[in-house]
C-alpha cells in the first residue's frame, strides 16, 4: 500500500547559454546583447584578464610575488558579472574574480600588490565601496548581506554582488547568508563559480547536489544555472537578476558552470588530482576563443583588431607591473597605523619597541 501525500511545494532549476563551445549561437541574442560595443568590451576585458593573470603567475614564479590564485579559463564569470554591474553597486568578491575588479575600473596593480604581500592592494583607488578579497571561504557572503541590509535600510537602489566557489557553498556562512537574504528580501546577487574543484576536492565529494543553484531552495531564493564559459550567458543572467533585485524583488543566485583549467594557486599542482581527459575536454570550451569565433563570424572582429588589442593589453599590463614594482615600501610603523582609528596607549609602547629594534634611522 502506498501512502497518500499531497504535494506542498515544487521547484525547478534551469540552465541557460547563448554560445556553445564552438562559438555558435544556441538561441537568438536578446536586445541587450545585440550590442557590438558591449560584446567587444567583454572580449577585450577577458583578454586583459588572461594576460594580467599570466603575468601574475610569472611574477610569482620569478619570486616577485607570493602565492597567487589564477583566474585563467574562468574569465567569463568575473568579466560577465562585473560588466553588468553599475558603478554604485558593491562588489564583495572572493579571490578568483579579478575580471570583475578590472571591468569595474579597478587597477591591475592593486591585485599585484595584494598578492605581493602588501596591504595597500586592498586600498582601492577607484572602487571605494568594494570589499577586499575574502580569504576565509564563504565569509564574504555574510558581509554582502550586511552591505545589502545597509542599502535596504537607506532605501537606495544599489545592488550587491558576491562571488563564491563551488567548495565554498558547503560552508555554513553561505547558507546563513542566502537565508537572511531571502527572509529580508535583500538586494544581493550570489554568483557561484562552479569550477568543479575546491583545490583537490572534486564536486562529487563536495555535495550530492545535482546543481548548486538549487541550494537557494533551502532559503526560498530563486536561482539558475548558466554556462560559465559563455560570457554572454553570464552577462545576461546577471543583468536580468540585477534588474529584479533593484526592483525590490529580493536576492538571486547564479551558478556559473565552468572548470578550473589552472592550478588552484601557484602553490598547487593540479596534475596531482585532475584527470587529464577533463582538462582536454574543457580546453575546447575556452570562453575567449568561443567569443572570438562568434565575433569573427559576425564580422565584429578581425585579425588586425586582435593584434591591436594584444599590443594594447600587453602595454597596460607592463605599466601595471611597473607601477607595482616601483611603489616604495610601506614604513615599518604601518603595521600599527591602521589597526584602530587612534592608536591606543599600549600599542605606542610596542611601536617604540619595533622602532628601537630597527635602529636609529627609523625613528620618527
Amino acid at each position, binding site marked *: 500500500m502506498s501512502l497518500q501525500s499531497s504535494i506542498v511545494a515544487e521547484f525547478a532549476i534551469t540552465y541557460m547559454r547563448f554560445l556553445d563551445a564552438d562559438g555558435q549561437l544556441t538561441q537568438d541574442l536578446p536586445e541587450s546583447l545585440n550590442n557590438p560595443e558591449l560584446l567587444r568590451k567583454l572580449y577585450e576585458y577577458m583578454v586583459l584578464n588572461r594576460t594580467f593573470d599570466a603575468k601574475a603567475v610569472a611574477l610569482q614564479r620569478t619570486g616577485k610575488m607570493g602565492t597567487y590564485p589564477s583566474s585563467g579559463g574562468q574569465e567569463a564569470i568575473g568579466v560577465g558579472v562585473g560588466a553588468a554591474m553599475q558603478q554604485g553597486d558593491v562588489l564583495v568578491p572572493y579571490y578568483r574574480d579579478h575580471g570583475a575588479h578590472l571591468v569595474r575600473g579597478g587597477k591591475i596593480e592593486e591585485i599585484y600588490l595584494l598578492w605581493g604581500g602588501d*596591504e595597500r592592494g*586592498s*586600498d582601492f583607488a577607484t572602487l571605494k565601496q568594494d*570589499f577586499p578579497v575574502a580569504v576565509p571561504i564563504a*565569509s564574504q557572503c555574510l*558581509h554582502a*548581506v550586511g552591505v545589502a541590509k*545597509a542599502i535596504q535600510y537607506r532605501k537606495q537602489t544599489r545592488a550587491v554582488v558576491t562571488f563564491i566557489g563551488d567548495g565554498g557553498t558547503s560552508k555554513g556562512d553561505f547558507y546563513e547568508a542566502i537565508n537572511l537574504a531571502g527572509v529580508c528580501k535583500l538586494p544581493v546577487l550570489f554568483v557561484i563559480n562552479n569550477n568543479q574543484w575546491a583545490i583537490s576536492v572534486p564536486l562529487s565529494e563536495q555535495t550530492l547536489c545535482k546543481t548548486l543553484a538549487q541550494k537557494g531552495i533551502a532559503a526560498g531564493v530563486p536561482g539558475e544555472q548558466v554556462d560559465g564559459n559563455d560570457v554572454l550567458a553570464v552577462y545576461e543572467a546577471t543583468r536580468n537578476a540585477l534588474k529584479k533585485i533593484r526592483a525590490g524583488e529580493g536576492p538571486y543566485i547564479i551558478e556559473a558552470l565552468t572548470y578550473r583549467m589552472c592550478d588552484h594557486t601557484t602553490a598547487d599542482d593540479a596534475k596531482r588530482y585532475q584527470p587529464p581527459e577533463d582538462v582536454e575536454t574543457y580546453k575546447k570550451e575556452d570562453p575567449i576563443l568561443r567569443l572570438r569565433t562568434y565575433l569573427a563570424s559576425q564580422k565584429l572582429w578581425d585579425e588586425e583588431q586582435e593584434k591591436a588589442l594584444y599590443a594594447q593589453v600587453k602595454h597596460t599590463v607592463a605599466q601595471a607591473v611597473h607601477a607595482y614594482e616601483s611603489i616604495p615600501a610601506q614604513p615599518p610603523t604601518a603595521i600599527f597605523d591602521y589597526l584602530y582609528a587612534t592608536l591606543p*596607549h*599600549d600599542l605606542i609602547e610596542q611601536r617604540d619597541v619595533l622602532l628601537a629594534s630597527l635602529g636609529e634611522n627609523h625613528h620618527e
Partner: protein
Amino acid sequence: MSEITLVEAVTQALAYELAHDQDVLVFGEDVGANGGVFRATEGLQKRFGSDRVFDTPLAESMIAGMAVGMAAEGLKPVAEIQFLGFIYSAFDHIVSHAARLRNRTRGRLSCPMVIRAPYGCGIHAPEHHSESTEALFAHIPGLRVVMPSSPTRAYGLLLAAIRDPDPVIFLEPTRIYRKIKQNVPDDGQALPLDRCFLLREGSDVTLVSWGAMLTETMAAAHTLETQGISAEVIDVATLKPLDMDSIIQSVEKTGRCVIIHEAARTCGIGAEIAAQLAEKALTSLIAPIQRVTGFDTIVPLYKMEHLYLPSEARILTAVHEVMAFE
C-alpha cells in the same frame, strides 16, 4: 530622578544612541517584540520601529558577519549575541574580519560595530549560559573589550562603545543585571574606553577586578577594613586596551596586588596584568602577586557553580597571604 538597574542602563544607552544617530541599528535574536531575553532592548522596537531594532534568524555567524558588512557601509550596528557562550560561531567574523577590516584596507573600510553579550554565572541557567571568556577577545589585535560593573558605567561605556570607530565587544554581567540600582542621568555622556576606574582608595593592597566580580571584591575590601587592612580597588572596565599605568601606579603605592576574575585562570586577563607587573613593577612588589580566579574547569551546572565562582572568602585568604608574606 529614579534609580535604574544595570540592564536598564543598557536599554537607556541604546535608546539614547538610537534617538541621536540614525546610523545606529540594534539587532539580534529576540531583541524585537520580546525585548531581549533579559529585557535589555525592552520597548526599543516599539519606539524606533522594526527598521532600526529587529530580530534576526538564529545564526550567530550571520549576526556578526552581517554587522561587518553594515559597518563597512557606514552604519553603526549594535548586535546582541544572546549569551556569551553562543558567540563562538561568530568568532570567525569577529577575529578574521571585524578586527581586521580597517588594517586590511589601510583604513579605506572600517568596522564601527558593537557586539553585546551577557556573560557570567550565578543565574541558575543551563550549560553555556555562564561563561566569562573575555580573555579570548583581549588576545585579538584590533578589538576593544569592555565589561561594566555598575549601571553608571554600563551607560557611559556603552555609549562610548557605540560611538567608537572600531569594533567593541561589550560584555554584560548577568549576575548583577538587577542587583544594584543607581541614579544614571540620561545625559548622553560617554565614559572613556581606555581607563580604569578607582572604586576605593587604600594603602596596603591593590585589588584589581572587573564586571560582576567587583561585588565580591568590594565586599572583601569592606571586610578587610574591619581587619585593619586598607585595600585599594580598581575596576579595569576596559580590558583591551588595558590601562596598566593606573594599575602600576596603585601597586607602586601599595606594594601588593591581588587580581580577581571569574574567568578560567590559565591565560586569563589576570595573567596579562600579573605579567606586566612582573615586567614593570617588580621592584615595587613586597609580596608575590596573587590571582583569585575561576578554576580551569568547565563552569559547573548550577548546583555547583558557587564552588567555581571566586568567593569573598577566597579573596580574603589571598589578601591575608599577601599581607603575611615577608
